[in-house]
């Protein structure tokens, strides 16, 4: 490995000052304003000549009154209190926090895309329809599916959409099915979506290898099973090697297989859910396709399906009709799942990412994501053993059980201490089936030097666990705030400035 400094460590140090940032309300002085509007030249009218008086609010809603300079200062300072991929490695398992190309941001900023009204007739938005139709085609090619909807705004919305498609499919065949199976390792959105889809959850336990227990699954199957939700690789980062057998078993009872695509990064361009036997696939474009996560969104969660489900997809869809595009609803569409056409600018970003990579580039993405995770797993084996000691896919779940029992240092302490070293923490305490879980997903865009620096930082933390465990309970220190009292926040909810008693 080349001797170079790691590019992914946020080793930036204090800029200056030592105080918390006031809220915009604390900065506000009534009478100030930053807003500037067009001069319309329209004759002013009194509000009460336009709107019946009893509708008018006698008191203005107070927002925050700031000069532009202070608004800029406030928000810029807030950004200096925020970690991000652009500042350093973000190995948050299950979240695929890879580098988000600035190119895709530039694409989304083009007024030719961003200034188009969603309700304009198709004849005035042919570019958008072409873009969406192309993306649909690319996503189908990548998943081995026949058709897709781009409407769902995030992964969980995709899940629920997929379950409604499952329901529509069975109902169309006159079948009443009531249960959906999910493994105990599943992400929390899966069971929640199942409930909202009107199904009961049947949980199957994982076996000692961290995989679906095929016997337990077979035992749980029956004619009342609508389907199964899986992610493959699963949430412990392992590939369900018996996926063909699982698919056959579920299909045998007439059930459908749903693929939670949050982990698609491990296999994109290398393995297709369709080829594994899945019928419905959602993708988190904000993970695999690097659309930035925005501090918690927006994302996009398109759902692709095999041909037997295509007619049920939400609509309308951008559809090529001879030499142009039209909005067409699938014949038995379940209806809309979004107010308009989905998170369009996120979709545009994802298509740009896909086109730059192509088939070859996306396969390299998966290969290097898996390489990085395995390297890290092996590198850390001596100090933080993997929950399942086998080659992993794009992420690895390690366990701090030994640290906890020996030194009283928990996964959370390790995570907090890692932030002092310039890295974001891994995901902790997920999946629930692993004790003291630390789930690392380095992603393919971190360099070997960054991985080594991350591993060294963890080594030094584990060393500190034996020497000075108290320092880990006190971590982090070099962050804008020290460890935060989460219990207090829940006990006395202060969710707005107005509730704050000061």
């Amino acid at each position: 490995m080349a001797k170079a400094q790691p590019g992914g460590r946020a080793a930036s140090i204090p800029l200056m000052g030592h105080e918390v940032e006031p809220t915009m309300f604390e900065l506000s002085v009534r009478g100030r304003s930053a807003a500037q509007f067009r001069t319309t030249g329209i004759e002013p009218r009194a509000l009460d000549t336009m709107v019946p008086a009893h509708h008018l609010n006698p008191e203005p809603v107070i927002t925050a009154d700031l000069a532009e300079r202070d608004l800029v200062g406030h928000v810029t300072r807030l950004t200096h209190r925020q970690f991000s991929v652009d500042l350093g490695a973000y190995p948050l398992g299950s979240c695929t926090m890879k580098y988000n190309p600035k190119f895709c941001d530039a694409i989304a900023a083009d007024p030719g895309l961003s200034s188009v009204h969603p309700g304009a007739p198709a004849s005035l938005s042919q570019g958008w329809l072409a873009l969406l139709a192309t993306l649909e085609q690319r996503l189908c090619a990548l998943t081995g599916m026949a058709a897709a909807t781009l409407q769902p705004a995030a992964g969980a919305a995709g899940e629920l959409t997929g379950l409604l498609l499952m329901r529509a499919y069975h109902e169309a065949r006159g079948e009443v099915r009531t249960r959906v199976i999910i493994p105990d390792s599943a992400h929390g959105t899966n069971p929640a979506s199942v409930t909202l889809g009107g199904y009961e959850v049947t949980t199957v336990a994982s076996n000692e290898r961290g995989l679906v227990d095929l016997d337990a699954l077979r035992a749980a199957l029956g004619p009342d099973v609508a389907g199964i939700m899986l992610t493959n690789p699963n949430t412990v980062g392992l590939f369900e090697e018996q996926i063909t057998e699982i698919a056959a078993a579920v299909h045998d009872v007439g059930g459908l297989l749903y693929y939670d695509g949050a982990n698609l990064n491990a296999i994109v361009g290398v393995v297709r859910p369709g080829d594994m036997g899945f019928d419905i696939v959602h993708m988190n474009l904000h993970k695999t396709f690097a659309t930035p996560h925005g501090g918690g969104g927006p994302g996009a969660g398109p759902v692709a399906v095999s041909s037997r489900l295509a007619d049920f997809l939400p609509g309308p869809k951008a559809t090529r009709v001879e030499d142009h595009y039209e909005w067409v609803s699938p014949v038995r569409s379940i209806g809309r799942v979004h107010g308009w056409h989905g998170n369009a600018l996120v979709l545009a970003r994802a298509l740009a990412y896909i086109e730059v990579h192509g088939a070859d580039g996306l396969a390299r993405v998966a290969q290097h994501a898996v390489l990085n995770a395995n390297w890290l797993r092996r590198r850390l084996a001596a100090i933080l053993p993997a929950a399942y000691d086998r080659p992993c896919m794009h992420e690895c779940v390690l366990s701090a059980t030994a640290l906890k029992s020996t030194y009283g240092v928990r996964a959370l302490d390790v995570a907090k201490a890692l932030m002092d070293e310039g890295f974001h923490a891994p995901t902790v305490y997920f999946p629930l089936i692993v004790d003291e879980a630390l789930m690392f997903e380095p992603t393919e865009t971190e360099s070997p030097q960054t991985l080594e620096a991350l591993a060294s930082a963890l080594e030094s933390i584990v060393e500190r666990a034996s020497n000075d465990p108290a320092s880990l309970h006190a971590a982090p220190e070099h962050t804008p705030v020290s460890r935060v009292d989460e219990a207090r926040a829940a006990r006395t909810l202060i969710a707005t400035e107005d509730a704050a008693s000061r």
Partner: protein
Amino acid sequence: MADYLAHTPEEVASMLAFLGLTSLDELFMHIAPAVRLAAGNELPTGRSEPDVAQDFARYGRANRATGGSLVCFAGGGAYDHEVPAVVRSLASRSEFVTAYTPYQPEVAQGVLQALFEYQTLVSRLSGLPIANASLYDGATALVEGLNLAAAATGRSTMVISSGVHPHWRSVVRTFARGTGHRVVEVPLVDGVSDWSTVDVDQAAAVVVAYPNYLGVIEEMDVAARHAKDLGALFVVAGDPVAAGVLRTAGQWGADVFVGEGQAFGTALSFGGPYLGLFAVAREHVRRLPGRIVGETVDTNGRRAFVTTLRAREQDIRREKATSNVCTNQTLMAITAAIQLGWLGTDGLRQVGIASATGAHALFEALGDVAGVEPLTRAPFLREFAIRLARPADEVIAAMANDGVLAGLAVSSLTGGADGSIDGDASRVLLVAVTERRTSEELDQYVESMRKAVR
């Protein structure tokens, strides 16, 4: 050929060697060959950024974007309000853009505080004490509102005014397939909800839009009374821009406020990403969908913010969670907070007043145009519907040639017959005016309409 990887071939080789492997393919060897892609998928090979940029420039040119060459009078839930450079520049700071959901508060105070400020603003706009940290969009926020109402009341009948945006009602019907909710749509008469027709004893929710999607300012006390009578939660689908001038949902007695926040700093964006606003009365806080940020302190007693009440969320409650929402629209929420900080109290009010002034001026000027009739005489704010002598889509197409996006054809929203319009919906045009429209643009509209409608 392009990618964003760092690894040199030598580095890959050395990493593989560390793992006892000799090729990247071996990393996938435990996957059955039948399942591995042999021939490759049907994707083209990769191309460079500047090559791909040309495709997208073509997509862009194949659209008629609003702005220079197309003056926007379309609304229907997506508005051409002022978005200043300062808001765009702040909201695109990479610390916000490239962060994940704030799971580690110690390094996420930027996003968390911005969301706290956003929640405060949504609470004030809605007149309700608790707001969440955003939902996907207005339509899905309404679904979450109904789910909350069902859980709170133990009932499943949803009484919804047809003044609620047709797309939102479509979304509600879609998700009702899973929840099993019964959706009762209340027709409009002359643009106003006619609650008298509702034949229901009790309901989980009564939903009214304020103003409704045709622009009409509904009589809220009637709707509120109706909700009370049915023992239902009163859910207001409110236009947050109206909050600059109209009474808030809370002032009308709402239990739940849902709304679309695009108007605050987000470009038209072909419909997304937008922003689902959500606020509730205090008693519903434990059923609040999505995330909520709360204030607390750190170990040094300094004020700090953190995602709280996580016990409601699906990662803990799993199948019993109140909602499945995980990723939301944080960046749009932050954008809205910045935009509202830019607008200020007076600016927000000014947007409402100037939009209304333009809308009323245009409405009156169209009174002189033969072939144009108001759909209703009910009061409106910045949007109104007119009945044309010709199909609305033909008029839109004709006016686009004059550089005017005339509005939305109501039938393109309703997709056919709908309780919101009596008679032929295909001739009804929905027209929106924002504070960005000038007197010359109104004149241009009227002139173009005069030609187009005959």
